[in-house]
């Protein structure tokens, strides 16, 4: 319902905007869109940027903050877009707009995580256990084991060092591909693969030590 409302908004917006610029804002590349936005200050151009990057910025913030912090991740994403609006005229075009945006989002989310950790260390096992699940197993015993295993994996992922943890969340939780993660975290593809590999190796050792080897 949410998606269709957003889609319908975007469609009506596109129709309304037709003819105001040489090409539709949604068809403009980032550089032209930003230049035009700085020149005109038009809110509709800014909305086009938000529509283009909302989901990816959210994926990045939620993956940095981790499960259990979804609402906070949305707050950070909101703050980032307000910050972009405030500072768009300082963007120098010497890098991709997306790189600039994702770097700001990542830094802000890391700051938020650091502050949150001063108050509490990790999301506890109970919280992870009660997280919304997509899994439905008919056998209660199997479901219980699967639930325990899931909690153990999530807890160990949560203890991974950054950026391994964020890479794992982006890949396994958000379903992002390696190339997408490389763009979001401003890394090359090989570095992302290496982080994933190291994270898996570390998790394997830790889970094995807890007896989850044959799970």
């Amino acid at each position, binding site marked *: 319902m949410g998606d269709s409302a957003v889609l319908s*908004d975007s469609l009506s917006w596109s129709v309304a905007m037709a003819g105001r610029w040489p090409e539709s804002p949604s068809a403009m590349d980032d550089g032209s869109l930003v230049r035009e936005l700085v020149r005109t200050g038009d809110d509709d151009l800014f909305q086009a940027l938000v529509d283009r990057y909302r989901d990816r910025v959210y994926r990045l913030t939620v993956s940095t903050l981790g499960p259990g912090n979804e609402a906070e991740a949305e707050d950070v994403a909101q703050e980032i877009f307000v910050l972009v609006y405030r500072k768009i005229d300082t963007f120098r075009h010497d890098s991709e707009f997306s790189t600039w945006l994702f770097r700001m989002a990542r830094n802000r989310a890391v700051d938020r995580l650091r502050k949150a950790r001063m108050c509490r260390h990790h999301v506890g096992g109970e919280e992870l256990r009660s997280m919304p699940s997509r899994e439905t197993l008919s056998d209660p015993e199997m479901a219980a084991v699967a639930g325990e*295993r899931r909690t153990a994996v*999530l807890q160990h992922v949560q203890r991974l060092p950054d950026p391994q943890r964020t890479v794992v969340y982006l890949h396994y939780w958000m379903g992002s591909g390696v190339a997408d993660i490389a763009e979001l975290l401003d890394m090359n593809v090989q570095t992302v693969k290496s982080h994933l590999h190291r994270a898996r190796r570390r998790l394997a050792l830790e889970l094995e030590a807890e007896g989850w080897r044959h799970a």
Partner: protein
Amino acid sequence: MPDRQDERTDRMIRDAFAATARPSPSPHFNSRLTVALAEEKRRKRAAKTRMRIMQTYWVLSGLAAVSIVSMLPWTESSGGAWLPALVVTAVVALPMMLVRVDLMDVILGSVEKMRDQI
């Protein structure tokens, strides 16, 4: 062998996250952002107005201070250079205090703007 272990761990993590709901921005994301941007615009306009008032005020008060200083007959016995300096400071600073302008905010705002331009 290590590859097989890597695959097994990959499957285990995949299973754990397959059972974890994937979040997405709320349907109110855009409307919340619109409200936040309206507040940001209001803040920007207020800051601009405040800056213009301050700039105008500094020019006028500077001129007034110079004219007062040049019109008064200063002598060694009336305090030398200290008195004119005190008058200029009072003329510049007093109204600022009266209109409750946060001087540090104005200075820091100007520095930030300059830094952005550089």
